[in-house]
């Protein structure tokens, strides 16, 4: 026993010595996750007030982070359709990474919203037995759940052949597990008998099921279903805000549209950043086709940023002339949050990265593309925050100037516990991606393999 522990310890120490950076990274993430766990337990034991205290701004940083991450995931879903549905070979080569990223972003994004709810345990029951078809939240929740299931299937179909390959190379229990995951023939292992006894074998190895699974058209069908549910879910997410008639800043048919466009540019930015950082962290050189695709994607991203910028300007300019929307528009342009609007949403999210991306795509500088996409991601986070929190700060009560009640805008700053929780969930996401990158076959394959 002792010898075994010793051996295990030595092996892990060696592994750490071998790649110290990787383990430092893992421990930092684990520490943040522990802090988030602490914040969560404290909120359960004490009161939820330590997380989100404001009555006037009940949707705060947690919801902004949720919107940011989930919209990134939905954008990745749309991008994946380029390869999976419309059959672009260049994008097909990246589809494993795109699908895995989309899956993890949406999963952890939904974790934000679950922890934001007062009673998350009730959601599954009551959204199933008494959904409100007039409520955008209900649609959004159901659609994202369907989407997650579809994406898991899509991802499994993508990596099935890799799993089979690995199973053939592995031995012992590893081989059994990988074989089961790939739904390969297991007749040489004991698991086969167990499955037989549990009556599972009949279903898992039904010839008709396998005929469907081996059909070459299946991946495209699944990708199309994922695309449709993902886009519908995203539109409903935009509608959650856009339906609220008494929130002047959110209301109207504009935001469902803008959510789609911003999903595309944040999705592209996240994909570029994740791919480039992954290759840098591994110290590997990108295959030339991938590099070309990176620069092409950078150009597309710049174009999308321009579209988003035009949409924003359209919203603001028409708002100035619309008596109903003048107040909210001036609030964005000149209100208390306007510095962040100009610096982050206009500068960091649109203008600077737009130029930077075009220039670096022309000069073939991967670093420039990385910097540009990171800027877009940071700027977009602030953009979501301004949208969610700013939409609630914009007052509903306007006493005349002579009234003795001055306009007191509700104020809000995240609490330290809220920050712990948010950073923890982001760390969880990064951990999931890191582990996935390490253990799952996400690597891009050149067209000759595909």
């Amino acid at each position, binding site marked *: 026993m002792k010898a075994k522990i010793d051996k295990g310890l030595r092996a892990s120490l060696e592994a750490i010595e071998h790649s110290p950076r990787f383990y430092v990274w893992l421990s930092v993430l684990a520490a943040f996750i522990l802090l988030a766990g602490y914040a969560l337990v404290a909120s359960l034991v004490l009161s939820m007030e330590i997380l989100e205290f404001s009555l006037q701004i009940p*949707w705060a940083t947690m919801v902004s982070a949720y919107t940011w991450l989930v919209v990134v995931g939905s954008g990745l879903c749309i991008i994946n359709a380029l390869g999976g549905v419309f059959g672009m070979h260049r994008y097909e080569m990246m589809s494993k990474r795109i699908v895995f990223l989309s899956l993890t972003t949406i999963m952890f994004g939904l974790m934000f919203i679950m922890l934001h709810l*007062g009673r998350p345990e*009730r959601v599954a029951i009551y*959204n199933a037995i008494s959904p409100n078809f007039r409520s955008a939240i209900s649609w959004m929740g159901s659609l994202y759940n369907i989407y997650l299931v579809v994406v898991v299937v899509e991802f499994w179909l993508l990596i099935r052949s890799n799993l089979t390959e690995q199973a053939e190379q592995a031995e012992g229990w590893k081989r059994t597990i990988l074989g089961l995951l790939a739904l390969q023939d297991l007749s040489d292992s004991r698991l086969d008998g167990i499955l037989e006894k549990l009556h599972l074998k009949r279903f898992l190895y039904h010839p008709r099921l396998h005929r469907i699974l081996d059909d070459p058209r299946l991946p495209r069908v699944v990708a199309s279903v994922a695309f449709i549910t993902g886009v519908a879910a995203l*539109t409903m997410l935009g509608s959650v805000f856009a339906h609220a*008639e*008494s929130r002047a800043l959110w209301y109207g048919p504009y935001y469902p549209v803008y959510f789609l466009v911003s999903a595309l540019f944040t999705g592209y930015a996240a994909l570029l950043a994740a791919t480039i950082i992954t290759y840098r962290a591994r110290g590997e050189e990108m295959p030339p086709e991938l590099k070309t695709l990176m620069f092409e994607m950078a150009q597309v991203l710049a174009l999308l940023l321009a579209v988003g910028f035009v949409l924003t300007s359209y919203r603001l300019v028409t708002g100035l002339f619309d008596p109903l929307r003048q107040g909210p528009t001036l609030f964005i342009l000149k209100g208390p949050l306007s510095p962040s609007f100009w610096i982050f949403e206009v500068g960091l999210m649109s203008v600077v990265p737009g130029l930077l991306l075009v220039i670096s795509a022309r000069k073939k500088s991967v670093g420039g593309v990385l910097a540009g996409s990171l800027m877009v991601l940071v700027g977009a986070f602030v953009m979501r925050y301004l949208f969610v929190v700013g939409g*609630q700060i914009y007052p*509903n009560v306007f006493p*005349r100037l002579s009234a003795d009640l001055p306009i007191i805008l509700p104020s809000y700053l995240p609490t330290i516990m809220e920050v712990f929780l948010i950073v923890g969930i982001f760390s969880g996401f990064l951990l999931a991606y890191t582990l996935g990158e390490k253990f799952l076959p996400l690597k891009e394959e050149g067209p000759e393999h595909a």
Partner: protein
Amino acid sequence: MNKTAKKISRRSVLKLLAGGSISAALGAPTIVFAQSRRYAKLADTFRCIGCKRCMSACQRWNGLEMDRYELITDRNTDLTANSWVVVNLRADSDNRTQRHYQHWACQHCERPACAGVCPVTAITKLPQGPVVINENKCIGCRYCYQACPFKIPRFDFEKRVTRKCHLCYNRTPLLNYMKPACVAACPVGALAFDYRHEIVKEAQRRVRRLKNPSYIMGLSEAGGTDMITILPAKPKNMGLVVAPKKVVNHTLDKIRISASGFAAASVIAGAMYQYSNTDQHRDKEKHEGED
């Protein structure tokens, strides 16, 4: 006579059925039901003396945590999960010499926006008038607060659900509806409770007898509410939340808004198709070049 009665009743039943199905589809199953049997509460700002007995009666009846300071102060108090009714001293911004105590709570809209957005249908408009949150069903998403045109429902951080005034639907068996706790506690008759049409009549009668200018809130705000308030001035001048004079968050409006998203999605799908065509062209050119 019998015949006509039968005819009328059949026709009205048909109308009721048609109206019921249409409005159920549009999300207002209750408006057809017993318009004349719906109750409403009257709050008369001119008569209120600010004793705040309604607040303490509400807190006692509903087992809410009392904040005694709120009951004795003249400072502005806001609704919380534990005070579903507040009485605040307000002045008309055009005529600041006169100050009035003003009773503020959920307006029990005829077509409540909150019930229309609650994802788990925890909020219902009862046929008798009250809009009630089922606290055993609420998931604490606070969407009702965002949608409410009067910004009423408040989140309870201890119970982790959203709570608000329910017009004491639980005070008496519903069909033999008796006064809510606040109305029963009012010593000067500033609050009243009756069938809605009676309450509207009473409000108009009181306004006619007043010499001061006044405004009746609740007749058309948010498409009409089951709480009628007599104010000395328009809500905006009183520093109250102003609701539009139409049904808020109408279902058709929601469909219109979401449809824009789906339209944009089709445009994006078209653009993606075009983009993917470039790929095939390029591939073809490449192959031709290689050949």
